[in-house]
């Protein structure tokens, strides 16, 4: 008896998960370097119910977004393939977010405090003179070359996992690999959220939820009728 109700509630939960993922994408429509979460539409049944699926798990759409010019020398963007290597609180991470600034001790840090790393590892530390980054990733500290930044994604783009869509898990496959794209100074990469797609997926999720709730109502009415009819007979 409970099966029908459970299946309907699983359907409602699936719709809710989709809406959560969509709202996550929409709220990050202006986040620099954000990669939108793509829905994983696995079959939903009572036995493989992925009720616990949060928007954190799932594939990211790694397609590039448009670059926006800011004129800030510490704003970097990658045009084409490649990612920035940074050292965050929990180890090495990859990101496309290039909004950096120079800390007092000279380290170049991004949002969240992650320190920009050279291609072969090591913090990028610069003086307070001219900071210049060339198209192939070469960093010039007051005219003197100090190393390369930006790593290739090792052919595993799309398989990097991410919790918030901005920082991606580091994989040893990218160690020291040069990027085939170009580094642009004075630009940032905008979010690749596609509002028209999010709207359509949201509409589909809402219709799905509506139908699922109809199921629950119908089922409820049936059970009500059954208990009334049987009750009368007593």
């Amino acid at each position, binding site marked *: 008896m409970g099966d029908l109700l459970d299946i309907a509630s699983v359907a409602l939960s699936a719709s809710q998960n989709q809406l959560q993922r969509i709202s996550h994408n929409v709220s990050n429509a202006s986040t620099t370097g954000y990669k939108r979460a793509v829905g994983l539409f696995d079959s939903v049944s009572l036995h493989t119910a992925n009720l616990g699926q949060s928007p954190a798990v799932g594939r990211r759409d790694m397609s590039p977004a448009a670059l926006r010019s800011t004129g800030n020398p510490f704003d970097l963007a990658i045009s084409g393939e490649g990612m920035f290597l940074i050292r965050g609180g929990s180890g090495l991470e990859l990101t496309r977010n290039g909004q950096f600034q120079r800390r007092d001790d000279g380290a170049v840090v991004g949002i969240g405090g992650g320190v920009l790393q050279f291609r072969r590892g090591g913090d990028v530390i610069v003086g307070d003179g001219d900071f210049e980054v060339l198209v192939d990733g070469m960093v010039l500290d007051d005219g003197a070359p100090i190393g390369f930044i930006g790593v290739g994604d090792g052919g595993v783009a799309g398989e990097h996992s991410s919790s918030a869509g901005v920082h991606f898990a580091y994989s040893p496959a990218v160690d020291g690999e040069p990027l085939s794209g170009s580094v642009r100074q004075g630009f940032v990469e905008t979010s690749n959220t596609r509002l*028209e797609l999010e709207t359509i997926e949201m509409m589909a999720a809402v*219709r*799905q939820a509506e139908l699922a709730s109809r199921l629950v109502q119908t089922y409820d009415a049936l059970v009500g009728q059954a208990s009334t009819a049987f009750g009368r007979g007593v």
Partner: protein
Amino acid sequence: MSDAFYIGGVGLSAQQLALDTIANNITNMSTHGFKRDTVQFAALVGDGRDNGAAAATAHGVVPSLQHTLDRQGDIEVTGNAMDLAIDGVGFIEVVGARGQSFAWRGGSLEVTADGWLAAPGGMVLRAMINVPYDATDLNIASDGTVSAALADDGEVTLGSISLLRVGQSDVVDRLDGGFYSLEDSGFVQSSLPGEDGLGQLVQGSLEQSNVDLNDEMVSLMIVQRAYAANAKVVQAADEVLSLANNLRR
């Protein structure tokens, strides 16, 4: 879920790409040597016959971007001897920092510190023309011959610039500054200007972009209407689903 829903979505994305392309074309209206992009739409058809369907099913549209490499822009005379334009078909080959080949449609030449004739950004011409230190004038003939007038009234021929035949059907990547990467295009024929139907070099001029503002404006209006029509399709599909859901009160 209604197919019309998702097909409308595919249409919206395709029109969005067309809009982005038009925006890029208009932005580069004054860029010398720029070749505008066009968006070609092709029907996306899914073959449902394997699953027992009677015929192939429609799945929307596939947009593809094309560079209009064969369309000539207007030649504008600047009078600057270091300006070079190509009148006709063909690209000048330049060499990048790591030895890779790029195609360039001409523009303002410069002389590097070592005396090599190069495109902006230090991209040395494949023709490897070295300009002597005491050269006063640079002369580039329409058939590609480069000569320089020396301070002591002598004239010396430095070499000749040949053109690459890069056409519409070649696969090229557009890069910054009007350079086209030839990585994936296989063998590219190279000849002297004026031979084999290639164009001629025009010194002292720059080629304007081949963007026609009237064309872009008309395309923009069409894209706007198409976008609105696709959105209407999505709305209609949504209403149909709503009706279906509410069949039972």
